[in-house]
C-alpha cells in the first residue's frame, strides 16, 4: 500500500539545539499531519497542513515548533530550541485531502526524538 517515509528513525539531541524531522508523504496526498506520542501515552495531534498552510494546530504545537513543505519536497517539523519535554515519538501522516477529517490517514513509522 501507500507508504509514508520518516527520516531519521531516531534522533538524539542536546536541549536547546534545533532539530528537523523529515517526512516524505504519499505522492498524491494533499493533507499532512504531525502527531506526538510520549512513551506510554496516546498519539496526540500537533498540526495539519494543506496547500502550503497550517490548517489547525493543537495546544501542544508550541511557538518553538514550525512546519513547512518547500516546493513539494519533505514535509518537515522543526523544533527550535528543543526542550526535555519534546522527547517523544513523532508520527507523520498524510491523506488525500478530499474528505478532510473523515479520511484514512497513512502513517510513517515515526521518529523517536530524545532530548538530553
Amino acid at each position, binding site marked *: 500500500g501507500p507508504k509514508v517515509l520518516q527520516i531519521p528513525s531516531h534522533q538524539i539531541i542536546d536541549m536547546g539545539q534545533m532539530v528537523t524531522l523529515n517526512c516524505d508523504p504519499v505522492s498524491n496526498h494533499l493533507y499532512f499531519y504531525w502527531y506526538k506520542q510520549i512513551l506510554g501515552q*496516546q498519539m496526540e495531534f500537533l498540526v495539519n497542513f494543506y496547500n502550503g498552510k497550517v490548517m489547525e494546530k493543537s495546544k501542544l504545537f508550541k511557538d518553538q515548533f514550525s512546519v513547512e513543505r518547500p516546493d513539494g519536497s519533505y514535509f518537515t517539523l522543526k523544533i527550535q530550541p528543543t526542550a526535555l519535554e519534546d522527547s517523544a515519538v513523532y508520527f507523520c501522516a498524510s491523506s488525500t485531502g478530499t474528505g478532510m477529517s473523515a479520511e484514512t490517514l497513512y502513517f510513517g513509522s515515526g521518529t523517536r526524538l530524545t532530548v538530553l
Partner: protein
Amino acid sequence: GDSVTQTEGLVTLTEGLPVMLNCTYQTIYSNAFLFWYVHYLNESPWLLLRSSTDNKRTEHQGFHATLHKSSSSFHLQKSSAQLSDSALYYCALSDNSGTYQRFGTGTKLQVVP
C-alpha cells in the same frame, strides 16, 4: 470537547478465543466517524476499519465493528484470535467540526498460545 475512551490498556487472550476491544466516544456533533488503527511493533500504524452508518457493521481482515450512536460505541471484535493479531490497537474519532482525528490511548492485544 471530543474524546475517545479505550478502557483496556492491555488485553491478553489465548489463541482461538474471541476478541473484543472497547471504544466509546464523546462528541457534540451528529456526524461522527470512528476508526480502528492497528500498530505492529516497529511498523507504521494503518487503518483496520472505518465506521459506516449508524448500526451498520463493517468488516476487514476478520475483524468487525458496528457504530452505535445510541451508546457512542465502536467496539472491535473478532471471533477467533490469532497469534499474529498481537499489536497495539487505536480507536480514533473525527467529526465535521475539525480537520483531524483524535486518538484514544490504545489497547495492547497480546495473543498467547
